[in-house]
């Protein structure tokens, strides 16, 4: 025993573990191993363990053994591409313009309006850039705390590429030269009533501007039209939401009338427009500490996104047909 304990760095068994198949589909193991005899195979088939292990392997069929550092699961995401493509092309019939304003490489911050009772806009923005951007640019969008920690929804969003919104996470993403999308309106944005649609709410405390200045990242404005009407919130249940610990409980034409199905977004026509990068009027650590400059830059970005939204809405003739 003492000899075994003296040498803890035993050859790691994991070096023998085969790499996952490129397709991502887990392979079933043969009972008794590949070179086992019939008796071994029979013994293994009779033990409950074998079935448990097979079950576990089947559970791995649509997930990767490796996720990225923020929890994006590439195999899982790829398995949902058909559904996302359907939403993008056929359900919302999304039209994307100005995608060339999104830098093909390097760090950048997309600043978008937030809407829709369910936070579908981040996911659809990611899909839009994957399908419409010339270099299929990948975007990580930052979500509010309440979405990140909402049961099921949060876990799903994390696997699809959402990241909890905080300065540390955003800095880390930008440092690795990634494209991030922020929704500075936050919960106020998704929780606004239908009558306030496309009216940008307060842009937080300008956290994204400070981030952009400090990290010297360009700020690309982005307007998403159509998402507000896909789940119009007619009213909020204030008292009830407090008991549930949620920022709002929505009442839409279909929810809670139709149950959870009522939360599905209506097939409105979506338009996503990217504008040329907004000049913030400074850069670096000093500029980020200048509250006046930050406030002014934040307001300028807000005005730019609002103007883009107004343009898109004026040009639109029908909510459902564009």
């Amino acid at each position, binding site marked *: 025993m003492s000899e075994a*304990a003296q040498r*803890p*760095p035993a050859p790691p*068994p994991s070096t023998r573990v085969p790499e996952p198949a490129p397709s991502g589909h887990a392979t079933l193991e043969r009972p008794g191993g590949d070179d086992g005899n019939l008796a071994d195979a029979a013994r293994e088939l009779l033990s409950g363990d074998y079935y448990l292990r097979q079950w576990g392997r089947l559970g791995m069929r649509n997930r990767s053994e490796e996720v990225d*550092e923020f929890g994006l699961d590439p195999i899982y995401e790829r398995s949902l591409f058909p559904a996302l493509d359907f939403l993008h092309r056929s359900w919302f019939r999304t039209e994307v313009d100005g995608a060339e304003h999104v830098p093909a490489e390097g760090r950048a911050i997309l600043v978008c309006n937030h809407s829709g009772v369910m936070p579908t806009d981040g996911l659809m923005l990611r899909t839009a850039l994957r399908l419409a951007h010339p270099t299929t640019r990948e975007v990580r969008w930052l979500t509010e705390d309440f979405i990140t920690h909402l*049961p099921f929804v949060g876990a799903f969003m*994390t*696997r699809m590429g959402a990241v909890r919104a905080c*300065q*540390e996470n955003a800095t880390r993403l930008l440092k690795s030269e990634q494209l991030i999308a922020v929704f500075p309106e936050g919960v106020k944005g998704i929780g606004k009533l239908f009558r306030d649609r496309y009216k940008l709410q307060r842009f937080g405390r300008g956290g994204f501007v400070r981030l952009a200045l400090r990290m010297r990242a360009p700020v690309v404005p982005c307007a998403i039209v159509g998402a507000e009407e896909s789940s119009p919130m007619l009213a909020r249940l204030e008292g009830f939401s407090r008991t549930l610990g949620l920022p709002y409980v929505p009442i839409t034409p279909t929810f809670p009338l139709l149950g959870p199905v009522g939360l599905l977004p209506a097939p409105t026509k979506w338009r996503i427009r990217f504008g040329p990068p907004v000049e913030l009027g400074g850069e670096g650590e000093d500029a980020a500490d200048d509250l006046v400059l930050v406030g002014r830059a934040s307001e300028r970005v807000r005005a730019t996104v609002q103007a883009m939204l107004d343009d898109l809405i004026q040009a639109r003739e029908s909510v459902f047909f564009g």
Partner: protein
Amino acid sequence: MSHQRSKQRVALTGAASFLGQNLVGLLEDDPRFERIVSLDVTPPATRGDKTAHVDCDLTRPQSVELIAERLREHRVETLVHLAFLSSPSHTEAYAHELESLGTMHALAGARGAGVTKLVAWSQTMLYGALPSNPNFLTEDHPLSARRDQPYFGDKIEAEAEARRFGARGATVTVLRTAPILGPTVRNYLTRYLAARAVPTMMGFDPLLQLVHEVDALAAFKHALLRDVHGTFNIAGDGVLPLSTVVKLVGRFALPLPGPLASRAVSALWMAGGGFAPSSFLDYLRFVCVVDNQRAKDVLGFAPAFPTREAVLDFAAAQHLRDVRLITDPVGAP
């Protein structure tokens, strides 16, 4: 500096624990160490010619004198403080005596013996699993685990105590290890993952970060060979969702709805069963993942095994344990 020093004389508290026992074995094999003093209530099974065992119960006040005397006698210049519980205990009073008072006694004894360097064990769990955590916690982040839980509170205090040891010029290296997993280590985490149905929190799938047992040991040896003052996160690269970890080990996840889970787990723990008290459920909901960059840059320690390898190594050994092809060594905690 390590290259100038002839040969090191090291003392270890908690020498019969998993980390202590294996570290004694590693130091026995290394010619750069000439004397190992093991302090524990039972002698480590890996002790050899270089090791002098001192039967010492850190919870007793007399241990201060004993440690000071013996360390002076063996001219020990470095203390490795490992006397912490690696799993939550039902006997909270003893845990408090050991971790809080034991640290005080061990450090007082070491100070009395003129020890110039301290390597102390801490854990990344002490940052706490909070909804406001960024995905990667750095060493500057405050330790915000629930202090009302003795398992965390005592360790946080002990770590602060260890850092104060450096106030008079001693080199203090604090290594905060992520949960340790591997083929031979046994702790609350290996018991949790060894369950046929692994309880999880319904709707939550936090990212887990682990450190391979070999890396954890290598980090301590590395800290002994290099004199670097500071606190370092020791964690494997990469993260995995809890559900993937459970599946890689070949287990069922048993999702429990939140209120039920915390009640069931506390009831089970009160009754003397279960893996951990309900405060550990936070770690099944929110991320508690650290950034190991400072250990790479400043300490010069890069883990050899990512989180995934730690899980796979544990899984390989656990499958053999499941069919009783290997059993736990006698006297394992």
